[in-house]
């Protein structure tokens, strides 16, 4: 069983253990930081004020979705029998990736939430490439995202191009990336995170009841994902605070460049897939194909996801996903541009 694999021999120094003094130092620093912020009033500086508001809004909006994702991941880990997932693996190989992608319809989770779920699925024995397909497709094909895309474009002539195009292209790109990831093993794909190492601080005890196991898993995943969300939100807020929108507007008329720019913008803005259609719809100067690139690429790769992937998967995975997802999205949206204009 994967969970009881012996750890690799580690000749490094044993990790330092936190003491009561460490805890007190952290609390003291937090109190000093709070007092310092209160006394210095940094929000009087315009750019700091802008940064705080954007950073706060990103974190406040996304954090509950991360928790929902952690909840779903914990349900899968604790309550869903392995046999159910094995059924997916029993499908003929060509069908496994599409089936994994379509399984995303059943879980209304955003991209932050899909990462811990995918990690859990891999830990539970699902083929890694199928789990990656699920992870990339679920934030695009789930009913909440389809509904939000419909609402955002409901009065446009491009309504069905956007709704059906996003669903179909998102699914195809996710399958393609899963295929590119190929027959990689669990150990080669996943990075061990501190809470899952055998020496971990918060591993459930063997005799603990399932409800305790559930809350522990949910908390672990939330804490693991939450730190990367905070990091990603910080980067996104910095960029949003200083990048003038006029720069992007200038390239809207250039066919391929406009698609690449919208993909880059989606990467930088790091929006939740359940809300990004409203933003994409506001870029009327861009063609539907460029907006579609924003809606397909963004939920697969962005600042905060980059941080999440880097913390979850081994080196090289992020590069593979960025290159494969960008290439597939570009080709797909160019075809849509040719067909529908």
């Amino acid at each position: 069983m994967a969970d009881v694999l012996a750890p690799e021999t580690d000749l490094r120094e044993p990790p330092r253990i936190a003491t009561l003094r460490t805890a007190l130092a952290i609390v003291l620093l937090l109190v000093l930081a709070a007092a310092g912020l209160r006394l210095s009033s940094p929000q009087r500086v315009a750019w700091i004020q802008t940064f705080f508001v954007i950073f706060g809004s990103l974190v406040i909006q996304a954090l509950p979705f991360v928790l929902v994702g952690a909840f779903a991941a914990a349900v899968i880990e604790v309550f869903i029998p392995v046999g159910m997932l094995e059924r997916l693996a029993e499908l003929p190989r060509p069908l496994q990736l599409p089936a994994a992608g379509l399984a995303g319809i059943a879980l209304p989770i955003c991209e932050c939430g899909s990462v811990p779920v995918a990690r859990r699925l891999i830990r539970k024995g699902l083929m890694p490439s199928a789990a990656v397909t699920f992870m990339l497709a679920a934030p695009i094909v789930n009913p909440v995202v389809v509904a939000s895309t419909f609402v955002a474009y409901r009065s446009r002539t491009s309504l069905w191009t956007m709704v059906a195009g996003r669903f179909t292209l998102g699914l195809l790109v996710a399958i393609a990336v899963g295929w590119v990831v190929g027959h990689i093993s669990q150990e080669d794909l996943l990075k061990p995170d501190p809470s899952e190492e055998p020496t971990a601080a918060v591993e459930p005890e063997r005799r603990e009841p399932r409800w305790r196991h559930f809350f522990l898993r949910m908390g672990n995943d939330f804490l693991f994902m939450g730190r990367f969300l905070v990091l990603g939100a910080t980067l996104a807020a910095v960029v949003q605070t200083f990048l003038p929108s006029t720069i992007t507007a200038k390239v809207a008329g250039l066919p391929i460049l406009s698609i690449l720019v919208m993909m880059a913008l989606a990467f930088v803005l790091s929006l939740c897939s359940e809300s990004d259609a409203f933003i994409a719809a506001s870029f009327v100067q861009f063609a539907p194909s460029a907006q579609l690139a924003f809606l397909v690429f963004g939920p697969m790769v962005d600042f905060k996801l980059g941080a999440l992937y880097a913390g979850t998967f081994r080196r090289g995975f992020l590069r593979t996903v960025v290159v494969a997802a960008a290439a597939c999205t570009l080709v797909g949206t160019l075809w849509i541009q040719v067909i529908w204009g």
Partner: protein
Amino acid sequence: MSGSPPVRNARPTGRSRRPHRRWSPGRIAGASVLGSWAALFWFLLLSGRENLYLSARTSWVVPVGAVLLTAAALGRIATVRVESPEPLRTREAWVMGLMVVPVVLIMVLPPVTLGSFSAGKRTAYSGAGFATSVGNIVTGELTLVDVAAAQTSKEGEQALAKRAAEEVDFVGFVTRYADTPAYEFMLTRYVVTCCVADASVAQVRVVNVPPGKFDVNQWVEVKGQIYPLGREVIVNASDITNVAQPERPYLTP
């Protein structure tokens, strides 16, 4: 029972039969982080500050987040006593401390909103996708969202042009650019569809302004006649008064 263990002479006490549980530092740290985030969401909910970060459309996230985070924190607290407590690594402890920093930032700093600094950096509001507001432009009371929507569609521009010289009443904050004359300012309001990260700008140029009377970022109520000139909309102010920042500073389309 045939399978029962042999009875010993010494009667076992209740204490010896129950597993001895002790506090787990790692679980306590995790519960503290979850609890602090839950406290932040309750704080936002009770203080009404969620309006400074989210649109009316998505503010439901805050009560839901408060309940879910509280449940997660309580569930975690229920697991903090274990038979063999695991040590918490120093690095992990500091990372958990860093996760509380956003909580401190949001709770300690006074309420702030996007101001003039962002107006030139954010995209103009596009009314496309909200075509129903064109109907509002023709007949209803004009809002800044209607005006902004009209500026980005031909039908909207035409509908708004028909209402030239009508009286309007807008609330927004004062924005000035390098080329804004002293007797004018841009009345600005952000339109937020989801959270402040997607804020776009709705603006009208206000003329007939007493020079030097209104500071940048000051919230004002402008009454006057509206004059749409192509993609720009001008309001000839008849009355401008300072007002408090609205409870919901951002508009929702």
